[in-house]
């Protein structure tokens, strides 16, 4: 009895707890160094140096930034709605980190759930991702409204309209890999890509590709990144919804933006790019890419990480290249192009799937 209790406690409480801590620490580190990489890569694109003062090659810059932000005065504007003002940054970061609980960073293990490379595998995982991701908009809306500032409010309104509009094509585009895999579990979806021998981006060509494209564009809009960074458009709305925020609360918004980028990239990798699988999992002669000499699962995690970093690089590349859309043009793009295209992808995939049966 004691042994059984100890075993259960170990598998269902201690290990997940440690994994949660590990996931958060790893992701926060990635976030910190994404900001660093962003500044370095933008520096490279813009013929300048980027941060290079703190530590070798400026590697300690993110830490210096955090220390600075922690030491800043935390201003709450007069006549702000304090509870909403305080709650808003948490509502941005919280959901983004929550989604990490179902992302499969690496393969499951035959030795049981304790040694698998994800926190948990929920059989409605994809639904959970979509549901939690939509909470994030409340943070931006509340933050913009509670600051008692006209620019903030307009930023918040833009954020609400933009994120809700782009959730629609995003949701539709997620249906395509769902149809291909026949399961909502994220681990199940990756395993389906293994058994079908191809990443879903290549599935039902070109509809997988189309869905991937729509997902990624909507993802950029969802995370309010350039060229869709209207809610915080610096030149238009000063800083948009976080105009009034300072110190660590501002940092939380910042963190939330990057956490969202990572989560959206991670979901894209899982659903379309084979998660922890190597490229072309169907080709035997490429099996050296499985990196069999590494401990089990680590190779999968590395592949996942590489794909994730490619996505993050593309985000940064966008920022260095594109001007910003106008608000109504953004809505046009979403409703007139992405949603019909996403519907087409869903319908075509469904018909194809039924025809194959």
């Amino acid at each position, binding site marked *: 009895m004691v042994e059984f209790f100890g075993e259960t406690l170990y598998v269902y409480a201690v290990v997940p707890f440690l994994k949660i801590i590990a996931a958060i620490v790893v992701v926060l580190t990635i976030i910190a160094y994404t900001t660093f990489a962003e500044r370095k890569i933008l520096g490279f694109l*813009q*013929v300048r140096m980027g941060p290079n003062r703190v530590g070798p090659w400026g590697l300690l810059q993110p830490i210096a930034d955090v220390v600075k932000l922690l030491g800043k005065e935390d201003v709450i504007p007069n006549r702000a709605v304090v509870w909403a003002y305080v709650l808003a940054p948490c509502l941005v970061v919280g959901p983004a980190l929550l989604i990490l609980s179902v992302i499969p960073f690496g393969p499951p293990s035959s030795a049981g759930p304790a040694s698998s490379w994800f926190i948990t595998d929920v059989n409605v995982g994809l639904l959970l991702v979509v549901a939690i991701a939509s909470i994030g908009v409340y943070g931006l809306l509340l933050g913009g409204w509670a600051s008692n500032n006209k620019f903030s409010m307009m930023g918040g309104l833009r954020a609400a309209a933009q994120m809700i509009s782009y959730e629609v094509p995003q949701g539709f585009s997620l249906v395509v890999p769902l149809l291909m895999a026949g399961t909502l579990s994220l681990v199940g979806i990756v395993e389906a890509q293994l058994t079908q021998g191809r990443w879903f981006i290549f599935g039902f060509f070109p509809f997988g590709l189309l869905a991937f494209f729509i997902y990624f564009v909507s993802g950029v809009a969802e995370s309010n990144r*350039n060229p869709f960074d209207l809610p915080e458009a610096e*030149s*238009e*709305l000063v800083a948009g919804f976080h105009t009034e925020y300072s110190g660590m609360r501002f940092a939380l918004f910042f963190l939330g933006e990057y956490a969202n980028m990572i989560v959206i990239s991670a979901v894209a990798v899982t659903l379309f790019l084979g998660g922890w699988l190597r490229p072309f999992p169907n080709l035997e002669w490429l099996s050296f890419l499985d990196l069999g000499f590494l401990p089990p699962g680590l190779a999968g995690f590395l592949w996942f990480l590489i794909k994730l970093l490619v996505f993050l690089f593309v985000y940064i590349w966008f920022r*260095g290249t594109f*001007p*910003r859309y106008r608000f*109504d043009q953004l809505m046009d793009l979403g409703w007139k192009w992405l949603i019909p295209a996403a519907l087409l992808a869903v319908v075509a995939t469904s018909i194809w799937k039924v025809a194959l049966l």
Partner: protein
Amino acid sequence: MVEVDSSDLSRDTLFGVEEMEINFGPQHPATHGVLRLKLKVDGERIVDCYPVIGYLHRGTEKLFELHPFFQNVPHTDRLDYVAAATNNLAYVGAVEKLLGIVVPPRASYIRTLLSELQRISSHLLWLATHAIDIGAMTPFFYTFREREVVLDLFEEYCGARLTLNCMRPGGQPYDLPVGWVERCAEFVGGFPEKIDEYEGLLTENRIWKKRTVGIGILSPEMALDYAVTGPMLRGSGIGLDVRKAMPYEMYDQMDFDVPVFYNCDTYDRYLVRMEEMRQSVRIVQQCLEKLPEGPLMAKRPRVLKAPKEGDVYHAVEAPKGEIGFYIVGDGTPNPHRCRGRPPSFYNIQVLPEMVVGGRIADLIAVIGTTDVVLGAVDR
């Protein structure tokens, strides 16, 4: 508590909310200094726009009256502070016209050279801020890379980078330093490629075109009514350029084109300025080739005294439009009255006509395209 008349169904705003008033500036990232706009907005749509100026007023025109002619040149630097050479040129040109001084050819060539370099540097700054306002971040750094070279050339010539104070009534204070001509030729030789680079990022970029084509329409009639000059006028299909219409210094000897575009929108004004930079390169190259030897300063009295009676207006083509000075003399070494005609002041007046009915995002694009410098507006 505002009474809301529920019978008024013509309003399509939700909850019958009144329009919102926004103070746009003077502390705002996109107002290029201290421009303040009182905006009335209905959601994102601008219903009314009222520019408020005067935050940078320094009484420059009064200062002119307190100092002798040659001491006034530094004041002109501070008008359009990103294009000091053309300010200098307009002022010293007016003084020379008033006193009847003829500038030696070498000085005249150097002036032409400096004003075209100034045009390049001013347009580069405009492109940088315009692009970053619209959200494209990278052109900012590319243009500053080249602007730095131009400023280095200025620094080598006169010791200053921004407030040049590089001309005197009667001629030029310094000769070109050794090697300056070669360095300048090297810069202008490579510059057209750099313009291609900027254009590669922007000109055919779909988002850039979406943000600028058809935005901020300025009809030719309206442009004339408001006395708009410079690239804004030439983007509206009127090819007026002081360099061609009333040639000064060596412009009548130069072979260059005045770009004119006819769609009256922000995109065309962008194209005008891009083409102007290429033409400036041509002018600079011709100046460097033809640069004659000779004296730099005309024979003139040590103390410049204006004639008892007489007034004069002299205008030059600054990067932003026609800048002119109207000087009245009264027989003393100081001007009795000196009035500046800065292009920015006239160009900013037309702003409300261009933005009302547009979106807030359009306002940003249009402010960028007017290329306003508040130092010149407020004087």
